[in-house]
């Protein structure tokens, strides 16, 4: 066991049993899976992506490249969890991934023997014949890490949208100091840190602030902040336009059925970035064995998790930070040798320090056993040192991800051997290790100053003094070392994707010399950790290989998310029924009670057909259509748009908006009109009613109501601001029912109403307002079925009751749905926008040409009707398509063919109960000139024949409207 007897921020009173690769182990509350595995002496926890080399835990937090594991707990399963980030919970079942039979003994480890022949990008140079497809299946099976479970995840995901005065990213020394200052100025502060406790690395590195132990100071400072939103266990994963941020919180208090992940979408007026820095590995031959870990991570495992990853430790470093790890290890009873790459490395009491030395080789298959050290410059004085832990530190890279995403610039600093933030974005203030190597004092000072600056930018003054900490010895500068200049180029830069120094040399040799080419050609930095440990080492190696300065090579683009974020969390509640809103008609419950099959049409849920017991949808449609022709049918048209247009200039304005003439429409009359886009394309059709000299009522199709309203407003506000016309969308306020059929008049006559529905007072295409069954309403003579038709509108609240009442007015009333209506209108040859028409259809294609000839005033789209293409003779025109075989219904979407070429298509087809045969409508090139012609109809390789005819197949004279 590697667990230390005492210490650590774990709860030794709460042991947590879990399963690792089928074996029962245990850790404590406060462990991560990684710390628990290390505590149980587990060395190999995974295999690298390409060569399947054994991988152990390397890091302690988001930098971890190796510890990808499969974690299952109850309903939760994560095939690619990072062990260093997952808090251990009782009963967790954890397993390695991408290895067979298991990570300890992985058969695919044999691939490593052929590494010479499969360098970076080898797959571009081979697998070309017979074809990539011949090899792909096997290669795909070897790729990928975890195994996704096919069952849907039923958890619910929460999302929060909030604003804040100051967002502080990072709750370490600098972040807490900044938040403390800003909060004292009375500002709304949101402090986010991805760890469970405040203080960040202070827990491990210690120190004294304002006389208190550092981590205790952090906790106290946060506790005293009034009005702050404190988000622990929360990662700021992305910076977007206008200071918008995406945050991922790992909650512990999620309600039953809700996932622990919650996404916050935050808008901040001022931003303090105190995200710290990430330690880089040293690059040397054989630096990828299990037991080779980040020195900073080892410090956290010893101090925070009371885990001693090794007893015989060699520390290889090129900077001072690793000496804190050395001290902690010695205090925990380990024997420590330090190889410091810098010639004049400072001596430390109780430590064997070998100055100017670097690792040049390692040994140990499933865990490091020894490391060869040698003098860096001459690579002489080679000495093998036994060890079971090799803690390495190659320097620190500031976490400038968010700064860069938001457009902040970067500059290479040789002294710090790092890309430091250059010009920050307006309203951003950077503090702490993100600005470069800083001691605790500097970090606190910068943090406080950032809080003061943020407050000042919002016109506020800070009311706390900056935190004090005793001065510390200034750290000696880093001795940058990017790799060991030996023939053995198997020096790992990206541990997960197995990218070595040799691969960078190959990329440089083949002229993949841009940093972006290096990344894409070698896959460097494209793994789960997105290059947190590998990018800078890769850039430095490329610079050396191509004779350029590191700053000149530059970095690849920092992209969200900072850590992988679950897709379910990003989708939030938009799932299942709640994926997208849908509108209901007022009588919805009654439709269902009467056997309606409800479907979505244009954003509304509407009855497609009303099924009787044992009836199929097709049979119901035919029955409904036939009964409307013979008797009387009732249809729910409540979803039809209703836009009131009023004002002294209403008539003039609408005359520009519509294709048809509407200014001369008499009061109390209706007219069927088209509305065009400026391109001349038919955008929508519908009935226009003139209710008064200065008041119209438009009824656009259900799916186009919002679009028509937006178009009216756009033109009035931007093109005709002087016109006195206003628009009211009253669609939802009215329920509208169509009563259609030869006996429709009889049924409507039974309504108690002051509206005279006699043909004299209310002829076809007329409308009257009045009182119906004690309710204010309208009756309009309009028909989309071709039968005598009445549209009855009453306030929506009474819609269901009115529908039931109408149904009860006669025993022979048949309910008909949209599908039957579609058959009836097809028999009449009436168009359906979006079915018969599309994004290219002009009015003349539908045979509606009078307005273009007669209308004096210019209207929307008019000029587009006169372009060469608009006047082309072979445009597709709307015609009837009568199948030669009356029993055969051609599929909608069949094409009319002339010697193998499509000359148009069938837009509508069905069996017509009224005609006792199949009918169709279509858009056919030069269609009106082909009346009477028989054409070949093509569908999925089979052909049939049909005769082109008039669109209207039934009651061409339209007598039934008035009969």
């Amino acid at each position: 066991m590697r667990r230390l007897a005492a210490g650590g921020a774990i709860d030794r009173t709460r042991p947590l049993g879990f399963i690792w690769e089928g074996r029962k182990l245990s850790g404590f509350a406060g462990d991560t899976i990684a710390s628990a595995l290390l505590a149980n002496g587990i060395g190999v926890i995974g295999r690298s992506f390409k060569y399947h080399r054994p991988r152990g835990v390397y890091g302690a937090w988001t930098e971890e490249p190796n510890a990808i594991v499969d974690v299952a707990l109850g309903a939760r399963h994560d095939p690619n969890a990072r062990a260093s980030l997952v808090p251990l919970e009782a009963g967790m079942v954890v397993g390695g991934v991408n290895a067979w039979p298991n990570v300890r003994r992985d058969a695919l480890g044999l691939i490593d023997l052929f590494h010479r022949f499969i360098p970076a990008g080898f797959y571009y140079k081979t697998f070309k014949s017979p074809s990539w497809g011949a090899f792909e299946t096997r290669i795909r099976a070897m790729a990928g890490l975890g195994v996704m479970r096919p069952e849907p995840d039923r958890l619910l995901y929460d999302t929060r949208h909030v604003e804040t005065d100051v967002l502080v990213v990072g709750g370490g020394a600098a972040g807490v100091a900044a938040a403390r200052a800003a909060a004292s100025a009375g500002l709304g502060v949101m402090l986010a840190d991805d760890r469970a406790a405040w203080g960040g690395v202070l827990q491990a590195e210690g120190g004294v602030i304002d006389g208190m132990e550092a981590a205790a100071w952090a906790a106290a400072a946060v506790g005293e902040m009034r009005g702050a939103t404190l988000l622990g266990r929360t990662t700021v994963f992305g910076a977007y336009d206008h200071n918008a941020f995406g945050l991922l919180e790992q909650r512990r208090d999620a309600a039953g059925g809700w996932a622990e992940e919650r996404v916050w979408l935050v808008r901040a007026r001022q931003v303090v970035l105190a995200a710290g820095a990430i330690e880089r590995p040293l690059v040397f031959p054989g630096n990828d064995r299990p037991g080779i870990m980040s020195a900073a991570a080892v410090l956290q495992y010893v101090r925070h998790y009371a885990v001693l990853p090794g007893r015989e430790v060699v520390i290889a470093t090129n900077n001072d930070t690793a000496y804190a790890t050395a001290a902690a290890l010695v205090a925990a009873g380990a024997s420590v040798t330090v190889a410091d790459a810098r010639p004049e490395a400072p001596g430390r009491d109780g430590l064997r320090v070998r100055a100017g030395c670097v690792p040049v080789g390692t040994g140990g298959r499933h865990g490091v056993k020894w490391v060869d050290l040698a003098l860096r410059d001459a690579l002489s004085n080679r000495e093998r040192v036994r060890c079971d832990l090799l803690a390495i530190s190659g320097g620190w890279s500031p976490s400038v991800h968010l700064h860069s995403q938001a457009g902040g610039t970067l500059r290479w600093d040789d002294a710090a051997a790092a890309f430091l933030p250059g010009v920050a974005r307006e309203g951003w203030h950077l503090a702490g290790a993100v600005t470069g190597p800083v001691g605790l004092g500097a970090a606190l000072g910068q943090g406080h100053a950032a809080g003061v600056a943020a407050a000042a930018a919002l016109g506020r003054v800070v009311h706390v003094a900056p935190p004090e900490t005793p001065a510390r010895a200034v750290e000696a500068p880093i001795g940058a070392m990017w790799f060991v200049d030996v023939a053995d180029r198997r020096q790992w830069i990206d541990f997960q994707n197995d990218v070595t120094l040799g691969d960078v040399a190959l990329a440089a040799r083949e002229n993949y010399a841009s940093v972006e080419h290096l990344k894409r050609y070698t896959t460097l930095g494209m793994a789960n950790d997105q290059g947190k440990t590998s990018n800078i080492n890769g850039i430095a190696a490329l610079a050396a290989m191509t004779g350029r300065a590191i700053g000149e090579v530059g970095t690849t683009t920092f992209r969200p998310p900072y850590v992988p974020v679950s897709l379910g969390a990003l989708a939030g509640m938009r799932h299942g029924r709640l994926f997208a809103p849908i509108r209901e008609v007022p009588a919805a419950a009654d439709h269902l009670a009467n056997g309606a099959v409800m479907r979505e049409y244009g954003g509304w849920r509407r009855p497609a057909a009303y099924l009787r017991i044992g009836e199929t949808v097709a049979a119901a449609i035919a029955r409904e259509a036939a009964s409307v022709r013979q008797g009387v049918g009732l249809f729910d048209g409540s979803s039809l748009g209703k836009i009131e247009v009023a004002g002294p200039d209403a008539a003039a304005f609408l005359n520009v908006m519509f294709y048809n003439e509407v200014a001369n429409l008499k009061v109390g009359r209706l007219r069927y009109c088209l509305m065009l886009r400026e391109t001349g394309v038919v955008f929508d059709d519908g009935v226009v009613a003139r209710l008064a000299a200065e008041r119209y009522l438009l009824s656009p199709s259900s799916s186009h109501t919002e679009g028509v309203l937006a178009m009216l407003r756009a033109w009035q506000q931007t093109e005709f601001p002087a016109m006195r016309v206003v628009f009211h969308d009253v669609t939802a306020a009215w329920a509208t029912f169509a009563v259609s059929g030869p006996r429709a008049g009889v049924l409507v006559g039974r309504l108690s109403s002051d509206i005279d529905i006699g043909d004299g007072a209310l002829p076809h295409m007329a409308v009257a307002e009045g009182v119906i069954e004690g309710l204010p309403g309208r009756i309009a003579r309009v028909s989309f079925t071709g039968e005598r038709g009445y549209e009855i509108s009453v306030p929506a609240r009474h819609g269901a009751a009115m529908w039931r009442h109408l149904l009860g007015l006669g025993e022979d009333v048949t309910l008909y749905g949209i599908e039957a209506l579609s058959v009836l209108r097809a028999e009449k040859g009436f168009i359906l926008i979006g079915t018969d028409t599309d994004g290219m259809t002009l009015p003349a294609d539908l045979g509606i040409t009078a307005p273009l000839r007669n209308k004096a005033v210019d209207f929307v789209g008019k000029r587009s009707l006169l372009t060469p293409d608009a006047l082309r003779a072979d445009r597709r025109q709307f015609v009837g398509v009568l199948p030669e075989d009356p029993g055969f219904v051609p599929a909608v979407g069949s094409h009319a063919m002339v010697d193998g070429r499509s000359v148009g298509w069938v837009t509508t087809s069905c069996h017509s109960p009224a005609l006792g045969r199949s009918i169709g409508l279509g858009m056919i090139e030069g269609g009106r000139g082909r009346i009477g012609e028989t054409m070949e109809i093509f569908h999925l390789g089979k052909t049939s024949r049909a005769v082109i005819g008039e669109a209207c197949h039934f009651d061409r004279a339209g007598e039934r409207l008035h009969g």
Partner: protein
Amino acid sequence: MLRLPCPYCGERDEPEFRFAGEPAVRPGSDVGDAVWAAYLYMRSNEKGPHREVWSHAGGCGQFFLLERDTVSHAVLRALRPGEAS
């Protein structure tokens, strides 16, 4: 995620707005094909400061002119239609 200033409702988030094209002066219906095609289809499509028409569709439904940098997405100016542009 953009934060745009509706001239009437103040600043709101991107999902409430719709881009409604570049402001264009509508020629008469007697112009030549090329002039009409330019009005319909040609775009200035500036890289940098760009004049645009937007609507606050998810709010008050009003249309307004916006000068916006198409690289940084910085909002330069928001004007009610017809306001001194």
